[in-house]
């Protein structure tokens, strides 16, 4: 257990100190939601209708944006081999690692998601629902990004490859998370169902993805 905690702390500290912490995803998220209205147009009713969806979409992109760091460095400097030799169960190990990184870097996403939705003219209650759904989506998003990152670790310009691999896998969680905000905005009672489905996808991903990531890391060590 202490090994897992050490890995968790190491990841969180590394992401905080070396990787700029939450600055990368936050800046990306802010840039994306600033640019979207410039492309769509300033019509208030249109913006409030697309607001919840744009928040989910931009959050997904900002998770993808930092996905290559998670396992890329470990693959490059031999840490991945040491992880597998350490005797700690690899599935638990990658779960601790991804959680550490996600907690250190992705915590502002629900906050910005909520504020951004209100800037788009979404009322407070649906904006909060969207933020809650984003929070529920973060485990799934970061684990899927980690899976793609582990498969493509150490490949030159792996960012593009990671995006291509992770996008289809993020379809369900995007649908449910953005759907929660959207149906809350439309006054549809399915908002809660969407939120629960988002949480369900996240839990399912927590159950399955660590094994996939561990297998991916092992396969890349030849």
């Amino acid at each position, binding site marked *: 257990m202490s090994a897992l905690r050490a890995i968790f702390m190491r990841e969180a500290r590394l992401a905080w100190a070396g990787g700029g912490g939450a600055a990368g995803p936050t800046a990306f998220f802010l840039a994306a939601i600033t640019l979207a209205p410039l492309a769509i147009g300033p019509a208030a009713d249109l913006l409030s209708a697309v607001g919840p969806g744009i928040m989910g979409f931009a959050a997904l992109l900002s998770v993808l944006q930092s996905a290559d760091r998670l396992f890329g460095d470990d693959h490059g400097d031999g840490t991945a081999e040491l992880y597998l030799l350490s005797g700690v169960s690899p599935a638990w190990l990658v779960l601790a690692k991804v959680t550490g990184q996600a907690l250190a870097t992705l915590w502002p996403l629900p906050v910005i998601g909520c504020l951004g939705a209100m800037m788009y003219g979404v009322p407070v209650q649906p904006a909060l629902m969207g933020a809650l759904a984003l929070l529920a989506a973060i485990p799934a998003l970061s684990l899927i990004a980690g*899976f793609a990152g582990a*498969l*493509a670790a150490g*490949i030159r310009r*792996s960012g593009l*490859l990671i995006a*291509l*691999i992770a*996008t*289809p*896998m993020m*379809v*369900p969680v995007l*649908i*449910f998370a953005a*759907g929660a905000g*959207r*149906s809350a905005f439309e006054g*549809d009672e*399915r908002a809660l169902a969407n939120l629960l*489905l988002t949480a369900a*996808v996240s839990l*399912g991903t927590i159950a*399955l993805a660590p094994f*996939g990531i561990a*297998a*991916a890391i092992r*396969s*890349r060590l*030849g």
Partner: protein
Amino acid sequence: MLSYFSNPQRFDQLARTLIPIFAVLALGLLAVGVYLSFFASPPDYQQGETIRIMYVHVPAAYMAMALYAALAAASFVYFVWRHALADAAAEVIAPIGAVFTVLALFTGSLWGKPMWGAWWEWDARMTSVLVLLLVYLGYMALRAALEDAQQAARTGAILAMAGIINLVIVKFSVDWWSSLHQPASVIRLDGPTIHSSQLWPLAIMALGYSFLAGWLILYRLRSQALRRRVRTLQRQREQAARAREEAVS
């Protein structure tokens, strides 16, 4: 049986007999199917002549999904038993499946224009096929990016197996998603059950497509094995030449 044919030589013999059989069957069935579907079958009472697009479109969509299932099955066999042939099959199936997916999307869009009045509808089925295309592309891109053959094989197998779990969830979630907004007043495709005058050409076309895919897969598997052998021979010859040079000097 699996391990019996995983012997490369036995597989080569099998492929050599099957390739011409599949080729004849595929071309014959496709010729009959094209004749039946384009000339001998009646136009639909609702959709008119455009129903003929269905005979090209539906088998392509079926092949797109069947080939992904085959890709995942081959990946599973490789991952568990490490049969090199299963990996070669997975590598070969992916581009063929991707082409059938593109064909399904393209013909679907051609069919959608007269039927729905739009080239593209974000309906559940079309969206999941589009996601399927992305999955194929991701698989091929990952394999192409990995230079080490064994790494490419193992990593690809993991991705292909994860993809099949994912596609099931995508199917469910996309159904949920497209039921969120009220469906537009489009003509439903799944109206009355299909009449036998349309079922026959469709079934023959589907069989023809299946044999075509089988033919292409076996052909590419053989040519890949040959390419590998040529490379080994070249390497041996280079080594022999180098050894001779060293002996002379």
